[in-house]
């Protein structure tokens, strides 16, 4: 038996969600991963062109995009690209992002115990925290866009609108940056095996059983 014979089913399967192939389960199909990385890429271009304008403390980031003036020029376009990617993301994930009875624990103080690695709830494909993060990101993208348009064309809006928009853009960013740092932490170092679901698209059975037991049962058809 050659390697090819083993790999082929996985390659085919990686185009479809929730498929079990041997010891692996496809968690994010190719389309999902492409959308996720489109959002991430446009976000980081917007981040590197926006942060040097936000505070001179991050002025060095301007060099990554060709200077502060270029940063001011490309930031709105990067922002629009980010919003468009976010629309795809919203439509794509929406069916999985309903807040059910199971997720109620995530709306109480119990949610904080997650960070002590305690189980807040019996988790389906996405736990309550992930669903909350999804909605926060969608709301954030909308907040960035609506407050960003007047900042893009400051000559055509009254001064008080701009004052409020700069403030909203800032507050949205602060929330976003805290959320994204947490998102990256939980997706990489904090929960080993998770990052592969966004690169290769697959997770191990063991990972699925541990992190998302309800989803694991659903996908594999196992009783317990």
């Amino acid at each position, binding site marked *: 038996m050659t390697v090819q014979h083993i790999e082929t089913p996985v390659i085919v399967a990686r185009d479809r969600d929730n498929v079990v192939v041997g010891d692996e389960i496809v968690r994010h199909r190719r389309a999902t991963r492409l959308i996720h990385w489109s959002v991430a890429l446009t976000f980081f271009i917007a981040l590197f062109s926006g942060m040097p*304008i*936000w*505070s*001179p*403390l991050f*002025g060095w980031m301007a060099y990554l995009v060709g200077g*502060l*003036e270029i*940063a*001011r020029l490309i930031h709105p376009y990067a922002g629009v690209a980010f919003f468009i990617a976010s629309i795809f993301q919203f439509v794509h994930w929406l069916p999985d992002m309903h807040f059910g009875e199971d997720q109620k624990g995530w709306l109480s103080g119990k949610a904080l115990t997650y*960070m*002590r*690695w305690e189980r807040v709830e019996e988790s389906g494909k996405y736990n309550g925290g992930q669903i909350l993060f999804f909605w926060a990101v969608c709301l954030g993208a909308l907040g960035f866009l609506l407050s960003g348009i007047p*900042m893009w064309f*400051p*000559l055509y809006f009254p*001064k*008080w609108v*701009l*004052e*409020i928009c*700069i*403030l909203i853009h*800032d*507050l949205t*960013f*602060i929330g976003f*940056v*805290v959320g994204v*740092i*947490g998102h990256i*932490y939980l997706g990489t*170092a*904090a*929960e*080993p*095996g998770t990052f592969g679901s966004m690169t290769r698209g697959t997770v191990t059975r*063991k*990972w699925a*059983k*541990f*992190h998302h037991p309800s989803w694991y049962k659903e996908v594999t058809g196992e009783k317990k």
Partner: protein
Amino acid sequence: MSEQALEIKRSSAAMWGTKTGLRTKDTVAKYIDTTTCIGCKACEAACVEWNDLRTVATHQEGSYQTLPELDAQFWNLIRFNERTTDDGGPMWLMRKDQCMHCAEPGCLAACPAPGAIVQYANGIVDVDPAKCIGCGYCATGCPFDVPKFHKTSGKMSKCTLCVDRVEVGLEPACIKACPTGCLQFGTKEEMVRLGNVRVAQLKKNGFEQAMLYDPPGVNGTSVVTILGHGHPEWYDLPVDPHVPWGVRLWKQIVRPIGVIAAFATVIGFFMHYTKYGPKEPPA
């Protein structure tokens, strides 16, 4: 610029507070007496000529006023306002409008580009086009609606108080051109003294509401204006100008909180990792 760099009092987006220049100087100021202005617009012409600004197309809008407002290529504008006096007579008000060169400049506070807006030791507030990124934040921060966006250069532009003339001991072009002496130039102290004398004189002559406009909300301006009838709003001036609350809130509170929050989050998760480690299934 190298000579002027010695005379910086304040600079936009300075990370750890501005390093001031070597020199300290007396604050300079323009003196504008609206009661003796005849609306001849010599100052407008002198400004355009000295600063080599391109002529802006004008339209008849039922007023003597050259343009509805200041322009990126028109930094000095006589504003004409018509009112009726209490006894039914006509009142024709003229005021020279330009950058007020605030001691507490809202434009400089709002500007995100390091060094794009500077305040020299003599109080002149200037835009450095080489560093300006054309974002327009200064226009949001200005209580007098002065900085304007110049479309072809992509930079903000406004009155420089003829810093290039003042630097070599000349008076600004507008002052030089004034035929009635309603415009004067000197140290701020001297101009305020002159203004107080003129206001007292006006009050004695029946202009009881005469006032010297040097708004304390922006810590005073380097333009001292005599308003014969009081009421700054009659002359298109804000009654109590100050740096907008939104700009202060954003610059002085939200931004520092945001920077701290970002770093605290990174440190927080690092500490979390050292305490709880990775979340892995039991072996």
